[in-house]
């Protein structure tokens, strides 16, 4: 630990995790090993954690989950550090506006309501994320896009075939497309999103469309990788999505 003038020194080139003291490298882990509860399991867990890079560790609980499975909670201390001065992060830059501001902004910069199509595609039956962003009611006290004067929303609901989405985008001359994916088992969401993007491109509607994806396992990086404009993760509220659509489309309008 470095201390200068009694102040704790945090070195951005050698950053590590914080338990209750700077640079202690403390991490809390919980995991299951598929072996029966007992002395062997305990030793195995210790070695496993060591291999993960924790030199010092303490198994604070080892519990028998039956059927040959054992649960562990472990506190480990690592010597590993990272140099955060070398990390580049991708962030979407836009100002989050209130509903009234966004409506006024669209009115002024674009001059017509924006058409938004939303769906969860293919096998995914979960509309909770989509509805949180689109439904009148919104999420966490933040009204959904349907409540905005300057959005015309077409919520297609769940388990919509990619082909149907593309058809709707064409039919409504959509400005923005919102796709929510919740089920991610065996990376089914990647397959679905890739298929949809391929279709959008084949049908020639990708270029003029703001393609947005959202879901608990969706990140900006993933969105870009799959060819979408942006990705929103858990905790996103409608006003963020609304502001993003408004500002990005107004920039596009200006450029054109």
């Amino acid at each position, binding site marked *: 630990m470095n201390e200068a003038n009694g102040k704790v020194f945090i070195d951005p080139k050698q950053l590590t995790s914080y338990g209750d003291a700077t640079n202690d490298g403390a991490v809390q882990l*919980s*995991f*299951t090993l598929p072996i029966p509860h007992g002395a062997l399991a305990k030793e195995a867990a210790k070695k496993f954690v060591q291999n993960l890079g924790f030199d010092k560790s303490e198994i604070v609980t080892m*519990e028998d*989950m*039956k*059927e040959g*499975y054992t*649960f562990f909670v472990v506190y480990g201390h690592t010597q590993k550090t990272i140099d955060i001065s070398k990390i580049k992060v991708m962030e979407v830059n836009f100002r989050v506006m209130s509903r009234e501001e966004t409506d006024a902004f669209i009115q002024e910069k674009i001059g017509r309501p924006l058409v938004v199509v939303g769906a969860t595609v*293919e*096998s*995914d*039956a979960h*509309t*909770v994320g989509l*509805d949180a962003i689109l*439904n*009148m*009611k919104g999420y*966490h006290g933040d009204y959904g896009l349907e409540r905005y004067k300057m959005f015309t929303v077409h919520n297609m*609901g*769940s*388990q919509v075939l990619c082909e149907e989405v593309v058809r709707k985008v064409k039919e409504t001359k959509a400005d923005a497309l919102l796709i929510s994916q919740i*089920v*991610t*088992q*065996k990376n*089914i969401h990647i397959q679905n999103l890739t298929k949809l993007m391929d279709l959008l491109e084949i049908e020639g509607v990708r270029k003029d469309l703001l393609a947005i994806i959202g879901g*608990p396992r969706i990140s900006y990086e993933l969105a870009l990788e799959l060819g979408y404009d942006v990705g929103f993760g*858990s*905790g996103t509220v409608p006003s963020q999505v609304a502001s993003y659509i408004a500002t990005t489309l107004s920039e596009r309008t200006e450029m054109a």
Partner: protein
Amino acid sequence: MSRLSITLNRDDVAEAKKTAKTIVDDVFHFINKHTTDTIERTVLRYFGVDGVDAGEAPLPNVVVDHLKKKGVLDTGSAYWISNACVATGKDPQTIAEAVGTNAMDLTAVPSQPLEKVYRFAEETANKALDRVESMRNTRDGLLTGLGDNRKPYKYVIVATGNIYEDVSQARAASEQGADIIAVIRSTAQSLLDYVPYGPTTEGFGGTYATQENFRIMRQALDEIAVEQKRYIRLTNYASGLCMPEIAMMASWEGLDFLLNDSMYGILFRDINMKRTFVDQYFSRLIVALSGITINTGEDNYLTTSDAIEKAYAVTASQLINEAFAKKAGMKEAYMGLGHAFEINPDIENGFLYELAHALLSRELFPNATLKYMPPTKFMTGNVFKGYAMNTLFNLASVFTGQDIQLLGMLTEAIHTPYLQDRYLAILNANYVFNNARILGYELEVKKGGFIEKRANEVLSEALTLLKHTEKVGLMSAIREAHFADISRSEEGGKGLSGVHRKSEGYYNPVLNELEKRLGIEVES
């Protein structure tokens, strides 16, 4: 010792139940005149038709599609298969296989004397339903012998996609103390207009419901029952386009619970409402004879609507589900009417609202086996906070006397549960239930206080919705988006092409026998 109770406005209760009955009676004018593809396939399944053809299509589908192509399905599949059996002396499976290889046209088989055909059909139906009743007796016997588990039952889900891996997770869960195992279905199965065949090892977000998968899991749980001297209930899903077929398979393989809702598929899966109403009736007749407990899906209303603002929609739907279940001859104890702990955790006194809503369900349906669903909508990646929310949920349940506790998973917002998530969920429930076992018998709810007032307020709002629904009819009320803020039309949604008006000569010995055994009088 009496449990925690509140006083509800008696007139409102009576009026709400009466109104729900009128609403449902009205829908039966439609139900009684129609049959569906899946009902006719169910009849064939009870007749012993199973397996797939060379193209992997289930034989019940092959036969029903054949009859549709010939334009005679409105007479009922039982007549055609029985006529062919009587004519050839072969069994229904052999006949179906012949249809599957195009070796037989059922409508080209010479008509046999009707009396003979009906006798064959009735005997076949009776034999099948005898087996259903014997499965029921086996379960009742096991429950009497082993004793039932304590309520609230701890209900957990397995969802690996592979039935054999599900078995090992189910074994672990029961040993940890779970009372009910639900094998969640592969995510799009409700939209399939057929039931997949055989054991399956691949699925998305769940495992396909097939008869063989039912059998494999039932056998595993029966082994556990012997080892642990504790009966473990098995749950699956009779919803979507194959409600009655899944119910049939469940009745055949001894499942204990089925998710089965009179409106869920319409609202949340966009399945045509006519199809759903007709199918749910037949599936519930099967359920009633099988002694299967249904679980209704009211919790879903709160994932699309606000849990306080739209609490009344849950109550109204429970009343409608109850009325539909009664029409199918179900006893109250087999009605797992649903509700959920979904109030925004940031709301002051949110827990009091939850107690009020839970007590309203308890008081309104004192004999039902209520199903209580955990927080999902406000679960985040903060698993520690999520675990705390699940603790309050468990407390609300044991305190207000709920029956089926669908255990909340701390990773609800992240992924299908890890083995350890399920373990921690059971640990939480065991701790809370044990610690607060008779809390509800020791404390009383303040008369005229926040909780009692709130419950009556929700009841009165539910009554308003029911009154409106009674006036316009259930189908119109759904079109007007009164349920879950979702609008569906009578002609929209999936599966309408599988609804058929019964012809004059329509014949369904399974339906007749179910209604007879359940003592249901059908007005024509």
